[in-house]
């Protein structure tokens, strides 16, 4: 295994779950489409890995590629259908009240996130992943202060939607 391959595998392992959740949230829970975006994201990570200068955290760098790749998928037919069907999908693993409750909450979240604009969706998904707002601002190309205000507004909107669902 070359040095690049080893580094890529490490980047993949440490970012896969976050990127998968981000993409799932972005496309309303459509697993097949999210999977395509995740794959494309990591193809771009591979192609650009040598150019990573370490100026930002590697996770921020991967998030940036992932959010931009999501934008590229606006042209995808599957994406268009997601917008129409609100095709949401967390089946509980078992039928215990706790599992049902979690599944119900997640379905509401997917639905409410899908109601947001593309940009707001990306911002709140990064916030849900625990990304510092300074890094969200860097990914989105906006001022830190603007992101702080925007996150506050989206959080309120999301919580209101979830409680009304």
């Amino acid at each position: 295994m070359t040095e690049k391959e080893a580094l890529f595998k490490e980047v993949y392992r440490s970012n896969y779950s976050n990127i998968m959740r981000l993409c799932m949230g972005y496309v309303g829970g459509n697993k097949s489409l999210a999977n395509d975006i995740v794959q494309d994201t990591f193809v771009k990570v591979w192609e650009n890995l040598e150019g990573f200068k370490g100026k930002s955290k590697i996770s921020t760098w991967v998030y940036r590629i992932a959010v931009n790749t999501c934008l590229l998928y606006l042209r995808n037919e599957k994406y268009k259908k997601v917008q129409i069907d609100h095709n949401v999908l967390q089946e509980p693993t078992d039928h215990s009240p706790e599992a049902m409750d979690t599944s119900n909450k997640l379905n509401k979240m997917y639905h409410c996130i899908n109601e947001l604009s593309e940009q707001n969706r990306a911002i709140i998904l990064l916030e849900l992943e625990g990304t510092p707002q300074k890094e969200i601002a860097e990914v989105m190309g906006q001022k830190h202060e603007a992101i702080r205000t925007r996150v506050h507004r989206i959080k309120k909107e999301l919580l209101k939607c979830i409680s009304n669902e």
Partner: protein
Amino acid sequence: MNDFEKIKETWVNQREDFSMEDVFGAVKKRIKKVGNQQKIANIVLVTTIAVLVFYFFAVSAFKDSQMILGMSMMICSLIVRVAIEVLSIRKLRKLNALLSTSQFKAVLIRYYKERKTVHLVVTPLLFITYILGFVILLPVFKNNLSTGLFWYVVISSIIVFPVLIVFIAKQIQKELRVLELLEKME
């Protein structure tokens, strides 16, 4: 823990249905596939040009000025269209995904605006050139083909041209929708 922290916890703890290893394998396959796709696109472009140039000489089109004009118009419009498409696909793949999202969105909007010009100006011009070339060739076809084959060429073209128009219109509609979506984003 406030309400947002609670939903955040639910979000990050959600079950994953995808195996990390399966997706990693798919990523490796896709990395190879992307390289192959670029080679295939180049092969399509070169083959199209080679076949059309070969056909031009095979039918001795250079012996008849009307045939030179008609065939050149048809061949050139096809070559230009295929070249634009190949370059456009390459450009989309090469867009710099390392930009911030707002910069990337601006680049994408510029890309789709260029595509809009291609669709609304260049493609119709090329399509008209192609049809004109075909019309110029009709008398040549009439003189050189049997009556049955001549009418087959005419009727099949009457069917093919509208189908092509519908196909192109759908493609344009799809890309204009993306442009509209991008421009609407805050």
